[in-house]
């Protein structure tokens, strides 16, 4: 009985979310990224273990990219990138570039493949996109610091960011479908 009530509640939430328009979805996604970023500013230790904080804006970039290119996500991703640059002491434009590159690549993949009929693509594509993005972070950091920075912290952030992606990917779906119209007349 309780399980049934819970599933009813979940389906109600899913129903509301399905009716939510792209602008509202975009605003909610922006707020979530901002909230995760702001919490990430505080020192985070749990039982003397330093917590790894995910790059939420990258999750948003890849999520929003699936719904095609748009001016609003681009502007917000650049702003999030600049904030990240300031916070992590990276050269200005570094994270903006990475966010936009991930956004563009995600959009390109969404347009080129029929993801709904190729689950492999929808599973592998984010992993590849995150990997490429973190390689870019590593390259920029190495060029900026004039030495090869260690990979292990980035791998940790990569894993945590991918976990965040798994948990929050539907939130960053703007509800627009792009891609090849398979089976339809061109």
């Amino acid at each position: 009985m309780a399980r049934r009530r819970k599933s009813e509640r979940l389906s109600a939430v899913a129903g509301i979310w399905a009716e939510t328009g792209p602008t509202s979805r975009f605003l909610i996604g922006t707020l979530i990224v901002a909230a995760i970023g702001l919490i990430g500013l505080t020192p985070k230790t749990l039982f003397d273990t330093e917590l790894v904080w995910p790059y939420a804006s990258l999750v948003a970039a890849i999520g929003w990219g699936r719904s095609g290119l748009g001016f609003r996500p681009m502007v917000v991703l650049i702003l999030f990138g600049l904030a990240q640059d300031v916070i992590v002491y990276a050269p200005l434009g570094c994270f903006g570039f990475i966010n936009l590159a991930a956004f563009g690549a995600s959009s390109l993949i969404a347009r080129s493949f029929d993801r709904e009929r190729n689950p492999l693509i929808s599973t592998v594509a984010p992993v590849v996109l995150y990997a490429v993005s973190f390689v870019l972070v590593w390259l920029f950091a190495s060029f900026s610091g004039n030495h090869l920075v260690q990979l292990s912290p980035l791998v940790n952030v990569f894993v945590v960011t991918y976990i965040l992606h798994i948990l929050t990917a539907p939130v960053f779906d703007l509800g627009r479908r792009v891609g090849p119209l398979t089976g339809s007349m061109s």
Partner: protein
Amino acid sequence: MARLRGKRLKARPVRRYALIVALVMLFAVLLAQTSPRLRAWIDPARTVAADQLASSARPGLWDRISGKAARDERIRELEAEVRELTRYRSVAISMAARLEAYEDMLNVMGEPPVRGVTARITSETNGPFREAILVNAGTLQGVQAGAYAENEGGLVGRVVQIGERSSRVLLVADFNSRVPVMGEASGMRAILFGDRDDLGTLTDLPERGSFILGERVLTSGEGGIFPRGIVVGEVVERGGALRVEFGMNRGRGGFVRLMPSMQIPPPEEYPAPDATDAEDDTGIEAGDGAPVDETAETATSEALPDAGAPGGG
């Protein structure tokens, strides 16, 4: 339908071009920052942004309206004053008289009182770019340019950016940090910098002799930024090489103390009057050598009222 599709197809390339233009522009901004001159323009703006973004010391709007911010500010001021006074009361009473006597006997320029600001770490950057921390004290709290930070474990780093309410401290564990150090027991001198494995690497070692395993590594005071004798870490052996385990990692209280750096002015800043000039001037006026010494001494003591003090407050 066809019209709609045509409109969509026309709109898409504009977005694509905008994305490409944005990517190119961001990359250009990245490249432009390799120029030190442009970087000098960007860094102050970045400091202000970091100050606004990450400083938890900034009071909120409600706190300002309700007057809580002003009260908190006053409480902080009074607490700082009490701390300062307590410190000085115990030290000053017992030591001042003796110190004065010793200084008179030895003709020593007195050490300045050590005054620092204790600040809370508001954010840490231990990502791939720089090992730095942001602390909630800036120029309003009396932090000065070039100040160094220490915690209960030892030296933490050096202030590289100061805002009104926050400062960014470059950790000694950063690759770009350079600290002149010496071994406590061996007395060996070297330059220490952070490496990728959270241990310090010693470079510019003398040709003969080496650091002793397990000895403490202290700042040598060379370079005029860190005073001599602050604990930096301990010599350990990793992979056949002597490395330094940073002492600051032992103190994880979340607070650092920002101390003013040693500011010894270079001789050019306060030049001593040239002996020959002094002789000429006084020789014309007085005609003998005795006033020369007196004039020179007076000039030196006037020119360097605080300069002999190696701390600068």
